[in-house]
């Protein structure tokens, strides 16, 4: 029996209204996004700021409701679900950590409080065992001695430690899906690897399905199995990460790859041609490819018809008339 993927997203869209009653426009933050997260695999969601990637994570965390499309959890659509019992069940399976480690902790509460709350809300263990479980979780994320750490306030911890507390909190409910929204971008460089290694360990030991949202291709390559590249609210390329990074189809992916400073390729650094343009999600977008103003490969059809996501290579799909034509 094939089990449904723990979390699947189908044609997910989210529009935000901007302007006032007289001049209303809509930002298409997320537009027709579909993918699934598989157990024991890390999927990287890569894009620039404004691409919609954080909105996708928040949609999956049910912090927003989608404008269209479905979020399927264990096969059934949860987007409309309102009953507390069902919402709580979802939250016990899908957890999230945020970009700002300090901001994601309540400054007036101790570490213990943060980790205790989910244990109590979801009744993971009986009250007598809570202290023990809090210490276990702290040990799991590498924060020792746990008794000392549990008594601290967020401001007493370093950024890396704060993020580990956030991870411990998310792990408390023993989730199947873990959403990580730029978890390392605000941390010191030498600490980032530690957090990434922790994610890898959790994936391997517990079979959790991860969504790793980032703008940093290099860290995505380090942890992820699959990659989804987002531009202006749409997925423009997806596939196994090594494959996509070694032979990218979409011009935007190629642009990203060329732009990242890579110490290993210093001596072959090439000046890349870049047209002007913003990567932010389109406001009331018209038909046609959203990358067309910046694309070196653009042909006539690109400004008229929105390219569909087409699997041009085995398991690798791109949204481009030129490199992944749909006939």
């Amino acid at each position, binding site marked *: 029996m094939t089990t449904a993927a723990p979390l699947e997203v189908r044609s997910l869209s989210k529009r935000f209204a901007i302007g006032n009653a007289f001049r209303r426009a809509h930002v298409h933050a997320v537009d027709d996004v579909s993918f699934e997260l598989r157990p024991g695999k890390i999927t990287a969601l890569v894009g620039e700021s404004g691409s919609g990637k954080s909105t996708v994570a928040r949609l999956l965390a049910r912090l927003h409701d989608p404008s269209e499309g479905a979020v399927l959890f264990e096969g059934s659509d949860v987007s409309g679900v309102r009953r507390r019992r069902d919402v709580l069940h979802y939250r016990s399976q899908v957890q999230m950590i945020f970009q700002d480690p300090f901001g994601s902790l309540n400054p007036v509460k101790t570490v213990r409080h943060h980790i205790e709350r989910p244990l109590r809300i979801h009744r993971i263990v009986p009250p007598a065992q809570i202290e023990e479980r809090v210490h276990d979780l702290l040990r799991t*994320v590498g924060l020792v001695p746990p008794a000392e750490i549990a008594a601290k*306030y967020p401001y007493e911890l370093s950024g890396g430690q704060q993020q580990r507390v956030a991870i411990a909190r998310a792990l408390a409910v023993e989730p199947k899906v873990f959403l990580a929204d730029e978890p390392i971008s605000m941390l010191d460089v030498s600490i980032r690897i530690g957090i990434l290694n922790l994610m890898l360990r959790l994936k391997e030991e517990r079979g959790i399905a991860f969504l790793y949202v980032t703008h940093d291709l290099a860290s995505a390559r380090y942890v992820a199995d699959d990659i989804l590249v987002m531009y202006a609210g749409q997925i423009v390329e997806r596939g196994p990460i090594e494959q996509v990074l070694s032979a990218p189809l979409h011009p935007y992916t190629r642009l990203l790859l060329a732009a990242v400073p890579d110490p290993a390729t210093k001596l072959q650094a090439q000046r890349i041609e870049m047209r002007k343009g913003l990567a932010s999600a389109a406001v009331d977008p018209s038909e046609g490819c959203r990358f067309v103003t910046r694309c070196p490969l653009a042909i006539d059809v690109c400004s008229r018809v929105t390219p569909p996501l087409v699997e041009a290579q085995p398991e690798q799909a791109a949204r481009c008339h030129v490199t992944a034509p749909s006939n």
Partner: protein
Amino acid sequence: MSQLDPTLDPALDVSLPATPRRVGGRLRVPGWLALLLGNPKSRTGLVMVGFMVIVALIAPLISVAHPNDFNLLAVRQAPSWNHLFGTTDQGSDIFSQVVLGARRSLLLGAAAGLLATGVAAILGITAAYAGGIVDDVVNFLINVFLTIPPIPLLVVVSGYLKNRGMGTMIVVLAVVLWAFEARILRGQALSLKNRDFIQAAKVAGESTWRIVFGELVPNMISRIAAAFVLVFYIALLTDAGLEFLGLGDMSKTSWGVTLYWAQVNSTVLQGEWWPFFFPGAALAFTVLGLVLILAGIDEVSNPRLRSERTKRRRLVGMLLGGRLVARPEASA
């Protein structure tokens, strides 16, 4: 020393000393009270307010005369041994008035403060967090109450309240003053609502109630306490006016009433400072004490301020002989 094995996940490197666990000495003192006692400003404030409360409690024991006693032989007397604070134009003893008046004034201020702040906090913060129609309704209410001029509002409300006396005044003050604070607290809650830790609490599964009262409010204690002090102060100032409008009971004495009569009789113009000074000083003293307590409350709601005063707390502990103040102990 390289005690950290790089093949393990990089573990903790605690460079800060652990916060000493606070355990009571002779008396078990709750954490927040220990903090307030530890901060010199709030300690002073507590003493000042405490003093006033004690005065109010023992008032019948120390006042020499009934405050409304007439004594036409002793009108307008400057402070003397017989009349510590002097007498009014009708010969009433001002000391008794101040000391017994403390009861009504403190009660009025505290009750009005609690009621107004309570309503403002609950409505304002819940509206901010819940958003949507709840927010729209509450916002509308706030705007209505803010734009209605207070005096006509008082007159209308007093028309509905048949009883006269303390209860009426408390309700009226709360009705007039809640909207101002509600708007401010709503604003602060709005800015906190989108912080990641609130979103994280939501993702953890916390209910709306628990988020509002367990996560948001603790971060707003400073502002809520300040709201209370403001209402307290305004209540005491407008006390006399309210009584005069017929909402209270002019026969009972309070600082506001004493001040009112002092003003009406133009005592200062006649060089008689004491009917103004003493009740005014009592009021100022109390409010000053409350404001000083606010300084300590900042520490309760911002843990970062606490560690800078660990040293001083130990000193205080020594001074008070380690009895009332929690003694810091090495952590477990």
